[in-house]
């Protein structure tokens, strides 16, 4: 595991807030030279700690009023069943995240839709028709917050 000091922590926190800042601007805030900041960012990226960059778009302004989490239980198990399901679910554009889980469900999906009728369409036409789908539980998201975590 990567050696991780307090300065790395501060750099990471700053980039989670705003990944578009340049190494120079970030360094000035943290009292570090541009090249030292850049080297640290590169090290964090190479070590896989910074896994990428994500744009957070305003769903409502883009016309997506509904986010639903689905718990999916497969009806048929076995390796082929999992692979078929995974291949098909990846191709559904409304499915934003897919997590394979252990517990009450096999998969957790995050789905966006324009409104509830649109969600119903996605559910019937795109989710319930996926290979191997058994029981599906839906929970409509009301609010969400992301925290910095142990940084």
């Amino acid at each position, binding site marked *: 595991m990567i050696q991780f000091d307090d300065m790395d922590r501060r750099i990471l926190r700053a980039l989670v807030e705003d990944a578009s800042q340049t190494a120079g601007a970030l360094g000035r805030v943290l009292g570090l030279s541009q090249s030292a900041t850049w080297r640290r960012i590169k090290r964090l990226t190479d070590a896989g700690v*910074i896994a990428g*960059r994500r744009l957070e778009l305003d769903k409502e302004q883009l016309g997506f009023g509904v986010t639903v989490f689905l718990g999916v239980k497969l009806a048929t198990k076995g390796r082929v069943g999992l692979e078929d399901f995974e291949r098909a679910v990846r191709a559904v554009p409304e499915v934003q995240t897919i997590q394979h889980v252990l517990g009450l469900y096999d998969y957790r999906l995050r789905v966006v839709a324009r409104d509830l009728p649109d969600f119903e369409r996605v559910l019937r036409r795109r989710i319930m028709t996926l290979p191997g789908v058994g029981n599906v539980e839906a929970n409509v998201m009301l609010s969400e917050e992301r925290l910095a975590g142990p940084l």
Partner: protein
Amino acid sequence: MLDDIDRRLLRYLQSDPGLSAVELAERARLPVATASRRVERLRKDRVIAADRAVVDWRALGYEVEVSLRVTLDKTAPRAFDDFIQAARALSEVVEIQTFLGQVDVRLSVIARDMGHYQTIYRDGVLALPHITDIEALMHVATLKSEEALPI
């Protein structure tokens, strides 16, 4: 109002947030000045709400991720507020979502290993107020995580 050009720009930026102004303009087949002006406006109108670095907790030694689905005692008038406020104070909680459905709140919790998770669960999670039921889903793998909107 957003038009097709805005959506096109957002589509490219969403799939590659690190694109320079020149690269973005080239892909969207727009003059650089036009593309930059539009992106500027999308940021100002908060259609682009944030641009964040994505942290891979595994690379920092957090091997365990658990989704805790919590049902709250709704006879307590401040159940949601009290619960969420207390959950925010647990540093290993990285996401909090509230729902309409069978589940009231979902917490995403990370831990270094199962022993660490057990400590967090016993001392932190079970001490949160107004819980009537709690159910855990252990993450095995994340198959898709970009959270892209189908714009």
